[in-house]
Each structure stands twice: as C-alpha cells, then as structure tokens.
C-alpha cells in the first residue's frame, strides 16, 4: 500500500486554493491527473513520487545519481588493488 511511483510533471493547472492544485504526471507514457498540494514548489519537468493520487516528494536528481557514483569509485578502487570481480 505504500507503493509510490516516480513520474514527470507535464502540466500544472492553477487553482486558487493550494489544497486543490492539480497537474498531469507522465508515468512512462501513461498520464494521470495528480494532486500537487503537498509539493508546492514543483515545476513542469520535475519528477515527483506519487502515492494514491498525491505527489508526496520531488525527486532530487543529484541524490539519485549517488549510488552509481559510489559504485564507479568502488570499481576504481578494486582495479587499483588489482582485484578481479568474482
């Protein structure tokens, strides 16, 4: 039930009341109307994490790359030590 899926905001409809702020979010080609009340700073093009029709977080693209940078460093260290991956 805590499933949340990342999608790209493609359109934001401006409502006077932030509680009703909606937008269209693209999930790999499928577009759904999503409530954006909890991500007030979100802009078109941002990726949001969506749970039961609500965006609950804006994805931090720099943080998203961190694990891959770490793995690259790990590879470099292993090469330096002359270790062959098993």
């Amino acid at each position: 039930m805590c499933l949340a899926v990342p999608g790209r905001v493609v359109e934001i409809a401006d409502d006077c009341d932030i509680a009703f702020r909606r937008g269209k979010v693209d999930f790999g080609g499928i577009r759904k109307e999503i409530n954006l009340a909890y991500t007030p700073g979100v802009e078109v093009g941002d990726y949001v994490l969506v749970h039961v029709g609500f965006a609950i977080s804006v994805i931090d693209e720099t943080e998203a790359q961190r694990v891959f940078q770490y793995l690259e460093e790990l590879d470099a260290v292993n090469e330096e030590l002359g270790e062959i991956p098993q």
Partner: protein
Amino acid sequence: MKFLSEYRNQKAAEQLARAIRKKVNRPWTIMEICGGQTHTIVKNGLEDLLPREITLVHGPGCPVCVTPIELIDKAVALAKRPDVIFCSFGDMLRVPGSSKSLFDVKAEGGDVRIVYSPLDALKLAKTNPARQVVFFAVGFETTAPANAMAAWQANHDKVDNFSLLVSHVLVPPAMEALLSSHNCVVQGFLAAGHVCTVMGFEEYVPIASRYKVPIVVTGFEPLDILEGIYMTVSQLEEGRHEVENQYARAVRREGNRPAQQRIAEVFEVAPRQWRGIGEIPASGFQLRGHFQQYDANRRFPFAGEPAREAPECISGLILQGIKKPHECPAFAVKCTPENPLGAPMVSSEGACAAYYHYGRRQNQNVQSELPSPASR
C-alpha cells in the same frame, strides 16, 4: 522508466552484494520494515546474493495485514447496506473477516468499489448524493496525507454523505514494541522509505540510540535494498547505531512539511489494535475535532458478532519477524491466495503472498533458522 529501471541493474546489484560480502564478518539479523521491501527482496531473490551471515526478517509494514479483524467485519457490515457505496484500495477486498471478505460481499451484490485514490471516493460521493459513500482509510504514514486531504476537502466542499472508516497505523511505535519484546532478534532496521518521505526521519534518532540499533531509511528497488543492507552491515560491523538515509533522492530529514501540517489538522494520535500483535499505545491516527463528523465509526453504530480469527493462522508471528511464511503448517496447503486464512497471504505487501507468488515455498536456499535472542 526513469528512477525505476536503473535501480534494477543486475551488474550494479552484484557489485553491491560483493561490497556486502567484503564487509561482513559476523552473523547479523536485519529487518526490513515495509512489506513493499519484502516483495522486492523475495521477487528478485536478493537473499541469494547475500552472504550466509546475513538473515533478513520481514517486518509488520503491511497496513492491510495489521488492520484488526473487527474492523474488517465492520467494513463487511457497512458494505452490505443498500444505502452504502463502500470504497477501498484493492488490497483489502480479499482479506478474510470472521465470516466474509469484502470480495464476498461484492460477489453477493454489495456495492463495493475499488478506487485508486481517496479523492476518487469523494468524487463518487459528490455524484451520488442520495447514497452514503464510505472509504476504508487504511494505511501507514505514507497514505495519511491523502486520507487527511479527502476529509479536509469533504469538509471544505460540505460533502455530507462521505465518511472514512479509519485504520491508520504508525511505524515508530511498532518498532519500539518489537524492540522491547523479549524474543526480538532484530539487530538493524531498513526503515520504510515512503513513510519517511512524509514524516522525515528525526523521530527514529531516539529509537536508534535507546535500543542501540542502526536504522537506515531505505527505498524499494533492488539496488536500494542492497545499499540499505550494506549501510546497516557497515554500522553493525563498526559498532555504530545511527540513523542514515539511503533513499535521499526522495526523503528529506524533515519530511514533507505541508503533508505533516494537513495530517495534524485532520488526525490525532490514538492507541490502535494491530491484527496478530495486539494493542500498541499511541500507534495510530483517528479523526480529530470537527472532522469526526466524517468518521464512519460514529456515523454507523455497529454491534456485530464477536470476531473469530482462523486458529491455524500465525500471521502475528510472521508480522513480528519471529516466523517465516513457509514455517507455517498451513502455508500453501490450507492457506492460499484463493482461500486465505490471514491477510498476509492476500495483501500485495504481505510476506506470505510474496513467498507464495515468487516460489519461496521450501526451506531450501532460505535461511529459516533465526539466531536466538541471547545472541543479540
């Protein structure tokens, strides 16, 4: 899909598994809190990548599984009423009550509808003013902002025929209940990433320090889980017990403030019954103040038969990580997704469902022996 597929990369997973193998020297038992994480682990066979020293036990983070049977019975009774449209997330429909599930009621002609969002239920209430629309508001902290918003919008738009049957539970009190139990074997936690997306992770700091357990906020894809395990094992091997954040692409230390504000406006903390575990103080939400007019519990008084659990079901032990699904004599024999004895067999986050669907039915390759509590 971006931010999903790259975290399922096999080469990177093997690299992380190698890093874990290099790090580990002693046996450790780690619990993943969330049932979504359990499903990733079992579906992708992540346990087979890990060194034998590491035992994963599956936690109570399945809201469908811990919703008390009395509330399922109440939902069934409400769904039977001709004046009610009963709305729920799909997971709840097959969960067995004392005599029926919501799915049985639907098969018998009850107006039970699966909705994607609580706002869809609210929309149904607006388009069906002559009917009562009840939404089964179950969930952990992740779902609380959505359910709070449904109550808030109902109040704002004066939708009087809408109500919520609330069964909201909280992760930190459940972790404390597990840790203070005498048979707890857990030495480190993968905390539930999406719960922390909403609530942040400051509330876990006192738990990590009081019980001397590392807690790593972890995501849901295979690389997230493996990195979470790597970070937990590093702490255990180095004798540290801190709160760390593996899932920083989605989780901020302070969580989602606007969501927390809406939750605080609509809900208040209350004691909750956890199915198979019992009552845990201050472990859930109930509607507060004038939002109680949207409480289905108050709107529809209910005096049902006393609840009856299937005696063979050991879901309480499974939800606490004391037993694994395949150790239950009824597993895949008397208890299947078609004829479940307990909720973990039918929820998309239930450990029994994960073991059943992804073939972890025998003891082979599964480390079923848990370390004794004395080895903690």
